[in-house]
């Protein structure tokens, strides 16, 4: 019985199923030439594996680690990081590289955009959900801003992509509202005429199940609420009254 090189390769890689494996096994034992071919396949595999094995030992760069470990955006933290980064002079010999984030620069690099489903959130034409204010902080735009100002948690708008979770008065005399859009959820706090977004996070996707009705806010959002809330969340009447006042206290 003869075996093609592809079969011998698959055998060397441990990819053959019975009964073929036993057949090749017997042939390799009986024929030193076949054994040499299999050995070459294994040696090459080991050599290639070894050439890149060291990458696994490297510390993962912070920009990747942070992105995966926590899809939470604290723009304040990001801004501090940027300030620190800006204060660190670049090494003189650094090659000029095209930025990975052409449009949003440092801001986008600090946003884990997966949370934001990319272009749906950021649009230059004002149709997006969020933007950056002059200080590089995340603020609500477009439909999100409109929903935060007008929609009531107690009276969900069926045609709006935005769902309001809870509304509450804050310790520093303002209002914040939790919201969700698709698979993302966040907290928005009224500042002057804008809704600033101190935290935006992915909903804890349980195994990728997409539940439109999921009302559970991510832990990061709950934490942000705990940090700010004065008393309890507002009932429908209080919410309406706050809306009438334009979210000013």
């Amino acid at each position, binding site marked *: 019985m003869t075996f093609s090189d592809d079969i011998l390769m698959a055998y060397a890689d441990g990819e053959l199923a019975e009964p073929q494996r036993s057949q090749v096994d017997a042939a390799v034992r009986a024929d030193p030439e076949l054994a040499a071919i299999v050995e070459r396949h294994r040696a090459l595999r080991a050599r*290639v594996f070894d050439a*890149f094995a060291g990458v696994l030992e490297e510390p993962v760069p912070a*920009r*990747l680690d942070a992105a995966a470990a926590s899809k939470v955006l604290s723009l304040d933290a990001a801004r501090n990081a940027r300030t620190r980064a800006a204060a660190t002079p670049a090494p003189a010999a650094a090659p000029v590289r095209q930025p990975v984030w052409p449009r949003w620069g440092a801001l986008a690099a600090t946003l884990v955009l997966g949370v934001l*489903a990319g272009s749906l959130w950021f649009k230059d034409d004002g149709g997006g959900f969020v933007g950056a204010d002059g200080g590089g902080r995340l603020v609500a735009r477009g439909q999100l801003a409109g929903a935060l100002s007008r929609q009531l948690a107690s009276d969900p708008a069926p045609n709006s992509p935005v769902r309001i979770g809870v509304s509450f008065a804050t310790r520093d005399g303002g209002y914040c509202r939790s919201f969700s859009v698709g698979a993302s959820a966040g907290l928005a706090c009224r500042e002057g005429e804008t809704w600033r977004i101190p935290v935006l996070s992915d909903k804890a996707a349980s195994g990728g199940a997409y539940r439109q009705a999921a009302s559970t806010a991510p832990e990061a959002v709950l934490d942000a609420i705990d940090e700010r809330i004065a008393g309890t969340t507002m009932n429908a009447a209080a919410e309406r009254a706050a809306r009438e006042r334009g979210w000013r206290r």
Partner: protein
Amino acid sequence: MLANELAALLPRMRRFARSITFHREDADDLVQVAMERALGRSEQYTDGTRLDSWLFRIIRNAWIDEVRSRVRRDAVFAPEEEGEHVGHDGAEAQVQRMAVQKAMSLLSEEHRIVVALVLVDGLPYKEAAAVLDIPMGTLTSRLARAREALQKLLSDERALT
């Protein structure tokens, strides 16, 4: 939660990207772009299927249709910094590793990616075929050709210096 599983796979994602791009920065850019895509499309991930294969597929596609065009065109093979991975085995092993990396860089894109999936990462043929969206038979013959080409390059010392 997907994010935590992603974090656990980061070292492998970086290794795969490195074996395609050869530049630490380009590789990490590639992983970052791929992660952005993965997180943005997490609802497209089918529960119960292998997350690693899904991610590798995203990395490969991000490389082919986005990141590849951004790497410096004039970039010749830039080996890892001297002493980068010099472990307990010293300089000779380092020379060996550099030779393999150099040889990999001379392979066609198609061959390089299949080698990266099966030999570098160790994905089973079935998963590698799924990543590349090709039938098993195609995967096997492509891998065999790629190995042949790589072996040839490695035995030609002049090509690697």
